[in-house]
């Protein structure tokens, strides 16, 4: 139940954030600094989430099959594969690495 509460709260915050763009007077928000922070936050969070999902195992760092997934996804992205193919490349990379005996 507790998780539901955080899910719904996140949904409300997400909608109000989007709505703010339409309802708050443009002169309050339309400055380069606001745009820049929105952009750097997006990059920083996605980079951090990539790192956590690759190297974190609870509160410990681990080198396991997920590093192969990261490499496979990077190769797919370099080959300009569509998003879904990139995700599949990650899954196949990790699954094969485990078949080969990686933790």
């Amino acid at each position, binding site marked *: 139940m507790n998780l539901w509460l955080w899910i719904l709260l996140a949904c409300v915050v997400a909608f109000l954030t989007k709505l703010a763009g339409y309802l708050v007077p443009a002169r309050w928000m339309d400055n380069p600094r606001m745009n820049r922070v929105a952009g750097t936050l997006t990059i920083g969070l996605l980079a951090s989430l990539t790192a956590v999902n690759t190297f974190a195992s609870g509160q410990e760092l681990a080198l396991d099959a997920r590093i192969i997934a990261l490499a496979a996804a990077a190769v*797919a992205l370099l080959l300009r594969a569509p998003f879904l193919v990139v995700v599949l490349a990650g899954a196949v990379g990790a699954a094969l690495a485990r078949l080969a005996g990686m933790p």
Partner: protein
Amino acid sequence: MNPQAAPYADLVKYLQSPAVRVGLSIAVATGLYGVSFGALSVTSGFDLWQTMALSLLLFSGGSQFAFIGVIGGGGTGAAAMTAASLLGIRNAVYGMQMNALVRPAGWRRFVAAHVTIDESAATASGQTDPVERRLGFWSAGIGVFILWNVFTVVGALVGGALGDPAQWGLDGAAVAAFLGLLWPRLKGREPAAIAVVCALVTIVAVPLVAPGLPILIAAAVAGAIGWFGHGRPTEGLEPDIDPYADGGDHR
């Protein structure tokens, strides 16, 4: 559009619009990867209804992946909510741009706000004609909303049937999903440097603080770089799938 006109003629005109074609193709491409969200959400411990609620109500791909990613990594609900909310701040910037370009009035503003995401904003911004901008925004926004939600359910059902997520490499799929979301935003040296710094900060923080918090520490670092930095104001504000990637004749 004139409500008196023959609806059939309107439909033909609508489908001939270049912005609508871009909007619908981006809806298919983006909607399809709702499969990966649905599958990862279920294997991260969310049930079908929670997964559907995230796609229907939160409706912002990056924030949804962040929410399930933090919970899947053992973080708290509060940390997941904070990461998702911070990742959604760029939608306020898009909202402001769309308010100027699309100019929805009355109740339509509330619908427009809900479908304000990377893809609808990018489709509208890529057009120069005001009518085309409007058509592009709505066709991408509503198209992605419908398909994203349909494919979320498909993914959740598939994910639920898979059994052990690690055996199928689904933890690797999550890694790939985040890298795929990050990749199109790394245009230029500064965005790449921010990404490397934030990834390193995260790795250093993982053993030191509770799960979920390393992401928020990295967010604070990224926010400070944006606040004090002088990079171009649009960096990081690129769609996951560029609607004008091939050709680019509408840019």
